[in-house]
C-alpha cells in the first residue's frame, strides 16, 4: 500500500479517536465511544501492517500475541478497587513503548538534528513516565510507603539531575552515535528523574499524579510521532496529553492547590493545624439504625476507606433498604475522593449504584442542610471543616463536602487515628456528629441486619 493511502486511512482512525473521546463524555454513549476508539486503533494498526516498510512479520506477531495476552488477562482479572494501580501500570507500559520506539528510531538512516532531538524527547518523556508510573504503582498498592518522601536537598538534587540530563541530551544530539554513552546516560537519568518526581508526592495527592502520568504517556507517544514522522501518533498522543492535563487541572482545583505545589512540596510539611480538642460521641449500630430508619434523606459520602474496606456492596445494599423505607438516598462524591479521578464513581457503579444517584460536590453542598443523615465512609480530608475554618490547616482553602451542616453526621471509622494528611478533623467533635467505630463493612452489615431483623 502506498504511503499516501496509509496516511489517508490514518485520518479515519484519528476521526474515530476524536468521536470516541467525545462520546466518552456521557454515560449513555460512553461504551460506544470506547468501542469507536478501539476500532480506530484497529484500523490504524492493520493499515500500518500493509506498509511497504514492513518486511518481516514474525517479531510483530510475537510482540502482539504477548502484549494482547498480558493486557487481556490483566484487564479481566483486576479488581475494581485496584483500578488506580492498573491504570498506573498501563501508563508505564505506554511510556516504555515510546522510549523503545524512540530508541529504535535512532537506527533509521538519515536522521536530521531535529529528528534526533524529538527522539531524545520521546526517550526522556517515555522514561520518566515508566519509572514514575512504577513508583506510583508501588505507592498505590502499598508495596512501598505511600507517604511523601521528602529530604532536605531534594530540590537541589532534582535541579542538578535535570541539568545533567539536558547536558547529556545536547552532547548526544551533537554526535548521535548509536553506542554513545550519552544515550545510555539519558535513558538512565530519565528513569531516575521519574522516580524523583513522584516520591515527594503523598498518598492523598495520588489523583493528580495519575492524571499527570496519563498526560505524559500521551506526550511521549506524541514525541515518538515526531521521531518517526507519523501523524497518527502526534494526533492521538496530543489528544491524550491534553486530556491528562485537563484532569490534572481539575484535581488541583478540587484541592485548591497549584500543580507546582502538589509536585514540589510534601503534603502537610509546611504548616501544622490547630489541634482541636473535644469529645467524640460514639454510637452503636442499633442507635444508628433507629436514626437511619427515621430519616427521610440520607447522603453517603465515600472516601478511600470505602475502597480499602471493600464496602461498596454493603453501602449499596443499605441504600436500597433505605429507599424501600421511603428515604431519598444520594451519594456525594468529592472530586479527589480516592486515589484517582472518579475512583469512587467506578466502585459504586460496580456495586450497581445507578450513576444518576451520584452527586457532585457543587450540587450537594447547597442542599446539605436538608439532609437528615450524612454517612461518611472512610473519607476524612474531603469532609474536614478545618479546610473552611482553620487558616493554619494544611488543607485550608480546599473545597469540601460540608457534611457538618447536615442534620446528623455518621462517621464510620476504624479507630481514632487521623487521616492521610495527619490533620485533626474537627468534624469528629461536632455537636451533630456520631462516630461509628469499627470496620466500615462490618458496621454497615450490622445496620443492614437491624433493618432486616
Amino acid at each position, binding site marked *: 500500500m502506498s504511503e499516501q493511502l496509509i496516511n489517508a486511512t490514518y485520518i479515519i482512525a484519528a476521526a474515530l479517536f476524536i468521536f470516541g473521546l467525545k462520546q*466518552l463524555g456521557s454515560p449513555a454513549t460512553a*461504551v460506544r465511544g470506547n468501542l469507536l476508539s478501539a476500532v480506530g486503533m484497529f484500523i490504524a494498526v492493520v493499515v500500518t501492517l500493509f506498509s511497504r516498510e514492513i*518486511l518481516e512479520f514474525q517479531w510483530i506477531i510475537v510482540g502482539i500475541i504477548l502484549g494482547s495476552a498480558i493486557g487481556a488477562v490483566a484487564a479481566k482479572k483486576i479488581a475494581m478497587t485496584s483500578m488506580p494501580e492498573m491504570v498506573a501500570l498501563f501508563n508505564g507500559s505506554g511510556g516504555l513503548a515510546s522510549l523503545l520506539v524512540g530508541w529504535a528510531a535512532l537506527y533509521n538512516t538519515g536522521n536530521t538534528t531535529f529528528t534526533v532531538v524529538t527522539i531524545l524527547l520521546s526517550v526522556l518523556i517515555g522514561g520518566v513516565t515508566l519509572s514514575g508510573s512504577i513508583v506510583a504503582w508501588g505507592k498505590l498498592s502499598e508495596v512501598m510507603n505511600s507517604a511523601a518522601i521528602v529530604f532536605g536537598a531534594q530540590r537541589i538534587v532534582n535541579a542538578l539531575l535535570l541539568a545533567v540530563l539536558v547536558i547529556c541530551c545536547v552532547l548526544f544530539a551533537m554526535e548521535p552515535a548509536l553506542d554513545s554513552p550519552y544515550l545510555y546516560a539519558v535513558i538512565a537519568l530519565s528513569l531516575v528523574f521519574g522516580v524523583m518526581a513522584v516520591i515527594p508526592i503523598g498518598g492523598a495527592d495520588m489523583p493528580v499524579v495519575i492524571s499527570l502520568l496519563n498526560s505524559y504517556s500521551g506526550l511521549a507517544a506524541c514525541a515518538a510521532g515526531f521521531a518517526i514522522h507519523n501523524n497518527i501518533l502526534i494526533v492521538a498522543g496530543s*489528544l491524550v496529553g491534553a486530556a491528562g492535563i485537563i484532569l490534572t487541572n481539575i484535581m488541583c482545583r478540587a484541592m485548591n492547590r497549584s500543580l507546582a505545589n502538589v509536585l514540589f512540596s510534601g503534603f502537610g510539611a509546611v504548616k501544622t493545624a490547630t489541634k482541636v480538642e473535644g469529645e467524640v460521641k460514639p454510637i452503636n449500630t442499633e442507635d444508628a439504625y433507629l436514626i437511619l430508619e427515621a430519616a427521610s434523606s440520607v447522603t453517603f459520602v465515600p472516601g478511600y476507606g470505602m475502597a480499602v474496606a471493600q464496602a461498596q456492596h454493603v453501602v449499596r445494599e443499605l441504600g436500597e433498604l433505605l429507599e424501600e423505607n421511603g428515604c431519598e438516598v444520594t451519594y456525594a462524591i468529592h472530586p479527589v475522593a480516592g486515589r484517582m479521578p472518579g475512583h469512587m*464513581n467506578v466502585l459504586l457503579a460496580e456495586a450497581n449504584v445507578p450513576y444518576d444517584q451520584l452527586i457532585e460536590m457543587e450540587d450537594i453542598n447547597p442542599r446539605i442542610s436538608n439532609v437528615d443523615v450524612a454517612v461518611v465512609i472512610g473519607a476524612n480530608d474531603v469532609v474536614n471543616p478545618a479546610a473552611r475554618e482553620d487558616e493554619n490547616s494544611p488543607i485550608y482553602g480546599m473545597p469540601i463536602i460540608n457534611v457538618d451542616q447536615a442534620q446528623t453526621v455518621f462517621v464510620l471509622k476504624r479507630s481514632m487515628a487521623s487521616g492521610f494528611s495527619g490533620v485533626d478533623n474537627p468534624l469528629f467533635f461536632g455537636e451533630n456528629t456520631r462516630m461509628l467505630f469499627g470496620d466500615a463493612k462490618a458496621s454497615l452489615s450490622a445496620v443492614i441486619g437491624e433493618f432486616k431483623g
Partner: protein
Amino acid sequence: MEAVFLAFVLMLSIFLGFELISKVPATLHTPLMSGANAISGVTLVGALGSAGAGIDGVATILGTLAVAFATINVVGGYMVTDRMLSMFKKKDTSGPAGGRS
C-alpha cells in the same frame, strides 16, 4: 518544512483535546483516563515499523519489545475501560432490587 507541518498538527490536536475533554462529567473521569490511556498506546503503530523493518538486530529487538508493551497498553486499556463502562447504569425503574445483568 515537514517539521512545521507536524507542529501544526500538534497544535490543532492539543486544542481539540482540550475542547473534547473539558466537558466530561466527574463520574466518568476514571474510564476517560483509561480510555485515553489506551489511545496513547498508538505508539504501537510506530513500534510495528521498528519491529518489522529488519534493518538491524538491535532495532528489531527494541521494536518487538515496544510492540509488546504498546499492545499491553492498547488491549488492556480498551478492555478495562469497556469493563468499567458497562457497569455504569441509569436508575432501574422496574424494581428496587436493581437490575443486575
